[in-house]
């Protein structure tokens, strides 16, 4: 099994190389087969590795394959070493499996695009980088993957680069995530300075001896790692890039900005849990960041009209849940929510892509409507995704993962009633905007005619994802209902079990409250949007102002514009002729001035020269006589 690991990232890399070298001249079927085929093969290998892993857990709990030594400088030696343990297995499964479905879908979705080869080359490179990120056994290799996915995200957001706003969105995503990346890099430097190694296992083992719990060093390092995660995972206050990143094609949004890349922050924190557990302060910050983000993004999703922006804010909000779970120490619940979220959010984005294509690139949900009858397969699958997103009890995967997070946000040692309450409000909002999205797009009268039905090849991935959106939750039940916890048993080979409070109220009570809240959200959404077009928001000025505030994403863009962009532009305007340049210009000026003075003596008069020589001789002789 060990020797198979390298093929998982190598196959997409091969696809990238083939497509970027020969893609321009290749016919479309070749591009599609190479682009989607390599990822499908990687998925098959991953499943084979996963089955072998399940059957007999390897020694040390992980498969690993040393490919070669990357570099060796002094005490630091970095290897290209792939390592697959229980946590990585979950991530590579999602990346390759969901990635393969999205690639198949893209083969049809991008068929008419003239840059199809560039699209698949970037997608394959993305899959390769993301796999490297999660399979790396040291943080340097992880950082390589981390930057690789950032690059691919940039390339794919700006895929249709002829439209200036798309390029701007790509730049914004790149620059804002760069803030996080820089923090992460500084964190890695500090970690290396303290521990002298960047190997994850070594860090995990040495950290408890080296750091005292809550010391300034460990707090600083974990906060820097957290900021890195916040940038990639679009958490407050670095969340503003993700809604704009919807400028990319829909499969890109599904793969990169919903299922995989944006959860890199979750992976990083889960992988570095040994460090985070040593710093309770950072854990509390992680939980608060998650809780605040899920509320802010949820409210923003309520007011959006662009179908993809609704889903983008919803993604931010769901990753907020994952951060909340990480922060309260519910490690396996966070990874479980990642697992289910990847299915239903990829599904929702792909289905949204189908809807947008079918309606002549119409993004505004209020110009859609009535698609229930016209596009039945898309309707059914979208319904499954939206139900999972709003966590309808017992029948959807989203319920099982979100319920676990809600429960742990109260009951775990790090949980508090405030966090629980925020998560509950978030659940209500999620149900409300999911219902709104569903009703406005699929019910009501038809406002834009459907001009094409989706290809079969696009519907099949939707159906597979819908199947998993419903059933993926059944592998992990709440403890009070059924003693079935395959998922947490699996990931707890790597991640510590959640520490619980004592003397807790019954879990049934919490489930009942969450269920009631979710159903209330759905019901209120139904009341507000069924049969009407939901224009009530605009009728009274305070509500309209609130709507505009939510619509703009809580005015974060304006705030950053005011705090950073404006002062920076002001400084550049003031400092138009660079202050530093004054020094160099001054040297040149002084040279010219001296030249002016001395060239007076160069007047061509022979006798003056002789006088000069004589004066010089006299000066030297006098000097000699005197001294």
């Amino acid at each position: 099994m060990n020797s198979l690991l390298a093929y998982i990232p190598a196959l997409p890399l091969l696809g990238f190389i083939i497509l970027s070298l020969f893609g321009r001249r290749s016919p479309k079927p070749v591009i599609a087969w190479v682009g989607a085929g390599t990822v499908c093969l990687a998925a098959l290998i991953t499943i084979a590795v996963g089955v072998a892993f399940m059957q007999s857990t390897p020694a040390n709990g992980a498969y690993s394959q040393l490919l070669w030594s990357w570099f060796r400088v002094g005490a630091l030696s970095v290897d290209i070493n792939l390592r697959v343990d229980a946590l990585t297995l979950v991530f590579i499964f999602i990346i390759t499996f969901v990635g393969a479905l999205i690639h198949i879908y893209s083969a049809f979705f991008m068929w008419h695009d003239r840059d199809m080869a560039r699209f698949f080359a970037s997608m394959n490179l993305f899959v390769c980088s993301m796999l490297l990120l999660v399979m790396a056994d040291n943080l340097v290799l992880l950082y390589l993957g981390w930057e690789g996915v950032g690059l691919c995200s940039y390339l794919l957001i700006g895929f249709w680069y002829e439209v200036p706003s798309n390029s701007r969105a790509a730049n914004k995503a790149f620059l804002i995530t760069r803030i996080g990346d820089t923090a992460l890099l500084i964190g890695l430097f500090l970690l290396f300075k303290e521990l002298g190694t960047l190997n994850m296992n070594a860090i995990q083992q040495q950290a408890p001896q080296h750091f005292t719990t809550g010391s300034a060093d460990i707090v600083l390092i974990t906060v820097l790692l957290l900021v890195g995660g916040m940038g990639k995972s679009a958490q407050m206050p670095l969340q503003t890039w993700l809604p704009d990143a919807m400028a990319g094609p829909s499969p890109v949004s599904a793969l990169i900005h919903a299922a995989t890349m944006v959860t890199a922050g979750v992976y990083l924190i889960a992988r570095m849990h040994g460090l985070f557990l040593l710093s309770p302060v950072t854990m509390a910050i992680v939980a608060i960041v998650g809780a605040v983000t899920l509320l802010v993004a949820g409210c923003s999703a309520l007011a959006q009209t662009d179908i993809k922006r609704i889903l983008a804010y919803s993604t931010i909000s769901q990753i907020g849940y994952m951060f909340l779970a990480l922060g309260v120490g519910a490690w396996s619940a966070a990874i479980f929510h990642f697992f289910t979220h990847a299915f239903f959010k990829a599904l929702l984005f792909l289905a949204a892509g189908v809807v947008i294509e079918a309606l002549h690139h119409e993004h505004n949900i209020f110009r859609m409507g009535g698609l229930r009858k016209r596009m039945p397969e898309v309707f059914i699958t979208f319904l499954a995704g939206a139900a999972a997103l709003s966590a309808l009890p017992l029948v959807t995967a989203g319920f099982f993962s979100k319920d676990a997070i809600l429960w742990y946000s109260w009951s775990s040692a790090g949980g508090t009633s405030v966090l629980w309450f925020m998560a509950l409000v978030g659940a209500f909002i999620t149900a409300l905007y999911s219902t709104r999205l569903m009703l406005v797009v699929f019910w009501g009268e038809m406002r834009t005619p459907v001009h094409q039905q989706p290809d079969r090849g696009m519907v099949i991935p939707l159906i597979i994802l819908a199947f998993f959106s419903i059933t993926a939750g059944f592998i992990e039940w709440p403890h009070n209902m059924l003693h079935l916890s395959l998922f947490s048993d699996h990931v707890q080979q790597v991640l510590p079990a959640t520490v619980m409070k004592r003397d807790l109220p019954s879990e049934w009570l919490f489930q009942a409250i969450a269920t009631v809240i979710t159903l209330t959200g759905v019901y209120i959404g139904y009341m507000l949007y069924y049969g009407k077009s939901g224009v009530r928001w605009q009728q009274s000025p305070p509500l309209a102002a609130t709507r505009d505030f939510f619509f703009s994403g809580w005015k974060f863009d304006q705030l950053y514009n005011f705090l950073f962009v404006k002062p920076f532009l002001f400084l550049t305007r003031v400092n138009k002729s660079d202050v530093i340049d004054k020094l160099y210009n001054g040297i040149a000026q002084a040279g010219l001035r001296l030249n002016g003075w001395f060239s007076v003596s160069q007047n061509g008069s022979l006798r003056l020269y002789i006088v000069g020589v004589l004066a010089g001789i006299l000066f030297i002789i006098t000097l000699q006589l005197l001294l």
Partner: protein
Amino acid sequence: MTDSANMVLMVATVLFALGLVGVLTRKNVVFMLISVEVMLNAAGMAFIAAGSKWQQPDGQVMFLFILAMAAAEVSVGLALVLQIYHQHKTMDVEDLKELKD
């Protein structure tokens, strides 16, 4: 012996001063060249005097050097003077300020 050396040195000094004044005051390039020759000969005379004072042949060797050098210098100098005259039709250094920056 010392006195005669001193006398010769004084003559050489006077000769040098004459040459110097000639260079500084003359406007004609040819006369300036002659004045330079006078100064060279003054230097050569000082060498002879010094050589005979310490009974060393070096002074006379140096004078032979100066003689050879002066001959070369005069040939180059006169060639330059000829060219100057051809080009500017004048011998006055005050008119030859083309080297001015």
